[in-house]
């Protein structure tokens, strides 16, 4: 059995699933719009949480938050279910497919067999859509892939019940109600304000202040931790910023694309100007990744190099601070 679901590739999995499921249900909404209205742009540094033996950095809010906020702001109702085991989880999914409901799933990446081996880490906040089933396989639309793919029943059970941080517990979700008249302008204004609030939050590890804090730490790393560990941590920042899913520059380019769409909806030319500015900031993040790459590739780093990187990051933070202050006033 299969549903008449259409696959569109996206940069980020959660945006992509949300956008694809809503499109299927008759609401034409782009990935940047999903990301922007879901207030997806973020920065947080969690030194006390270790991922792959390095501190956690994130350029996005908690898994599920983007779709959750999007739904709330647009008045869409989304049904979310978690399950105690593969049996009940599989049955609920099969029932949905029988009723022609393509369903979003939260899964772990480590056992996703169609992913390149090198990309398979224990990361549990990946999202995909199941849109059909054959005798042996589930038909999968993974938004970061160019085309649709399949997983065997056993393989899908394994990724739905992956363990570790953010264990998906079989989580399945799908929209059940989409209002007829949606006030996009109101939702966009609200979302932009929330993003400005997050990025300018008076919390040392969040938003602009978080970026500045990381810059300060980078100066200390080579002395405090040794070059090897310092480089490992640096690589972690770059991976979180550029890994499949961010659309480049730690989501800054997707956000700039959102601002362009928002400028049209709100008839606000200032947002278009700010979009160009955000693109420039994204390019600064890219430059940072290039410089960081040079440092850990050579491995013969002097403390100077780390100071240079820290300066670069501080400059980005300052640019973003000005940017979000302007953006707050623009809406």
């Amino acid at each position, binding site marked *: 059995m299969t549903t008449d679901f259409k696959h569109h*590739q996206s940069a980020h999995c959660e945006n992509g699933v949300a956008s694809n499921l809503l499109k299927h249900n008759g609401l034409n909404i782009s990935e940047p719009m999903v990301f922007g209205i879901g207030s997806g742009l973020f920065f947080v540094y969690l030194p006390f949480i270790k991922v792959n033996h390095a501190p956690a950095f994130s350029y996005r809010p908690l898994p599920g938050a983007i779709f959750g906020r999007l739904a709330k702001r647009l008045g869409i109702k989304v049904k979310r279910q978690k399950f105690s085991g593969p049996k009940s989880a599989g049955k609920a999914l099969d029932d949905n497919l029988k009723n022609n409901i393509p369903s979003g799933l939260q899964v772990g990446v480590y056992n996703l067999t169609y992913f390149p081996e090198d*990309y398979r880490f224990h990361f549990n906040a990946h999202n995909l859509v199941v849109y059909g089933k054959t005798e042996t396989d589930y038909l999968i639309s993974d938004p970061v892939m160019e085309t649709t793919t399949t997983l065997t029943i056993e393989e899908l059970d394994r990724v739905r019940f992956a363990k*570790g*941080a953010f264990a998906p517990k079989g989580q399945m979700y799908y929209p059940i109600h989409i209002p007829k008249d949606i006030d996009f302008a109101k939702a966009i204004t609200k979302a932009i304000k929330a993003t400005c609030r997050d990025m300018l939050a008076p919390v040392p590890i969040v938003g602009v202040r978080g970026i500045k804090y990381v810059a300060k730490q980078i100066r200390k790393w080579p002395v405090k931790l040794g070059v090897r560990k310092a480089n*490992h941590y640096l690589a*972690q920042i770059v991976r979180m910023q550029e*890994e499949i899913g961010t*659309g480049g520059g730690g989501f800054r380019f997707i956000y700039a694309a959102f601002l362009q769409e928002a400028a049209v909806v709100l008839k606000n030319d200032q947002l278009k100007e700010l979009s160009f500015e955000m693109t420039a900031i994204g*390019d600064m993040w890219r430059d940072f990744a290039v410089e960081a790459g040079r440092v*850990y590739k050579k491995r013969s780093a002097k403390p100077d190099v780390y100071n240079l990187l820290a300066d670069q990051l501080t400059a980005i933070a300052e640019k973003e601070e000005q940017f979000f202050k302007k953006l707050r006033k623009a809406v």
Partner: protein
Amino acid sequence: MKESEVPQDKSNIESLNMRELCYATDEKGNYTTALSSGWEPKTIALNNALEDIKERTEEARQQVINGVASPVVYFMELSKMDIGILAGYVGMWQWRIKRHFKPKVFAGLSDKVLQKYATAFLITIDEFKNFKG
């Protein structure tokens, strides 16, 4: 990032003919999407992480050979896990798993417990028990 600058470097996804979607601007600064086969700084960062796992796995293998660590440590590193993730998969407390890191304690484990580990590591119980490094 300009559309013309979307990187098409060699990467770990290229072998699978996989390309990822990027957001980039046209000559007027308007956004569009483009596919990228990879970007070198990113590949370097990923390889750095993979290299680190390789080193940790090799270290664990030597420890198994020298009789200071059990196969649990080796297969944990090989599966890119840490003790928290492994605890989730086998459904045991972390302190209990830490005890199983000792070869002496490992030698006395029941088949039932060994099976839990083998399932988590996706190997057979014999492969697991008889791993000598």
